[in-house]
């Protein structure tokens, strides 16, 4: 650790001992969340999500292509994330590095494994033609907690997406078939305190990170633990509980933003 994070660490750790955070939030409280949809008219679906100062834009594009041979009757989805140098002085140009890849994969898993996109309804001709859904995540301002901002933006963009059947002369356009989405909430741990929705300063001193995606029934749908620190079982349970609580609130914000 260089000197600046050490000073930050001592400051934030001291605050945390008395249950406080630098920006005045409760330990398990999210920053303000803003969601704006349909911001890119060229995209099939799009959204801009702000969590505090963190800002993410996601665009959905669709194309017709071949299915994978092991799932000939189901559509294909791919997720890509770019940590473009616009968003932070520390992001460099070039092909995605491991952080961008982990981000894209965690978002992808949250959507794929919970079956949010009904890929079996995206088959045009078995073994020949299916819809391909591209989820492209653009980080434009980085102030911590990209996992949740990117997941939420991807969901908001999907919820407003239209299958562009007319452009491919495949009948009328229709809304992308979707199921109830799980909401992802990320906590980090430093100095034996666990905080939800870490700001950049908190993320820089974090020892361990846990992302939990929960569905509308309060069941767990995806998890990812990151960084070199550890959690004990009690801590994991606490994180899951507060992910469910926050997930409920975020789901309401999400539905409100897409008019559901």
């Amino acid at each position: 650790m260089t000197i600046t994070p050490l000073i930050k660490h001592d400051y934030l750790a001291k605050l945390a001992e008395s249950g406080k955070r630098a920006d005045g939030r409760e330990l398990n409280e999210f920053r303000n969340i803003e969601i704006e949809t349909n911001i890119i008219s060229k995209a099939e679906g799009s959204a801009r999500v702000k969590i505090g100062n963190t800002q993410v834009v996601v665009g959905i594009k669709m194309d017709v292509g071949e299915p994978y041979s092991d799932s000939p009757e189901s559509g294909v989805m791919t997720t890509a994330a770019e940590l473009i140098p616009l968003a932070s002085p520390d992001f460099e140009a070039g092909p995605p590095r491991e952080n961008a890849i982990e981000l894209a994969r965690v978002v992808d898993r949250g959507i794929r494994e919970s079956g949010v996109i009904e890929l079996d309804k995206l088959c045009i001709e078995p073994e020949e033609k299916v819809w391909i859904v591209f989820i492209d995540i653009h980080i434009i301002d980085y102030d911590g907690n990209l996992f949740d901002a990117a997941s939420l933006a991807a969901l908001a963009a999907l919820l407003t997406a239209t299958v562009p059947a007319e452009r491919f002369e495949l009948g009328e356009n229709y809304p992308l078939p979707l199921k109830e989405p799980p909401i992802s909430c990320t906590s980090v741990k430093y100095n034996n305190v666990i905080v939800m929705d870490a700001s950049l300063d908190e993320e820089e001193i974090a020892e361990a990170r846990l992302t939990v995606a929960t569905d509308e029934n309060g069941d767990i749908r995806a998890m990812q633990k990151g960084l070199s620190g550890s959690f004990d079982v009690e801590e994991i349970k606490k994180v899951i509980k507060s992910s469910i609580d926050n997930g409920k609130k975020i789901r309401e914000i999400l539905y409100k933003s897409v008019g559901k």
Partner: protein
Amino acid sequence: MKSDIKLFDSDGKRLDGRKPDELREIKIEVGVLHRAEGSCYLEWGGNKAIAAVYGPREAIPRHTQNPLRAIINARYNMAAFSVEDRKRPGPDRRSREISKVISEALAKIVLTERFPRASIDVNIEILEAEAGTRCAGLTAAGVALADAGIPMRDIPVACAAGKIENQIVLDLGKEEDNHGDADLPIAISPRTNEILLMQMDGHLTLDEFDTALELAMKGCHIVSDLQKKAIMKKYQNIEEV
């Protein structure tokens, strides 16, 4: 490129209802990003661009440093979802060329001699593209540089003129660009009318070129006023300390 598409209606109006010397609608917001030292969001017709400035900071890798001046590192990038058919992420030959000519245009206007060995990084993201993204990007970059407090001789601004159906018009739209006869994007220093960037494709006679250049310059000055208004809007209420 000749085609059957009519680019003017019977009243001499263009496809989107504009007069020949009329710009598309432009909206400029200053300081939209938290992390960057200066930033600008710009909508120009259907184009949506964000520019962010970082630096001056030590140029890395070190062999890129110039002991006499700062280097300007502009990076023009298009989002995968910015165009009709998804674009593969990452730089291609087109975006590298645009990055280069924009870097060179900005290097002329920034007082680079004040910051030896430094780099000033100008990141331009095109979120949505509809003809004229390089002009939109450079215009946003000019505002972002001013917002970052980078010393400049002027605030650079860009605009294009072109030829459709044998008539010179300002600021080509998507269909006009695809079916028109020529496109002439320029960037200038509006105080001195020095030309910082100029590209042309298509076919223009010498007279047509003169008309087009004059029209593009006129467009630049209109956009320049919008840039200054947007910057004033952010800074005019800040009191001196």
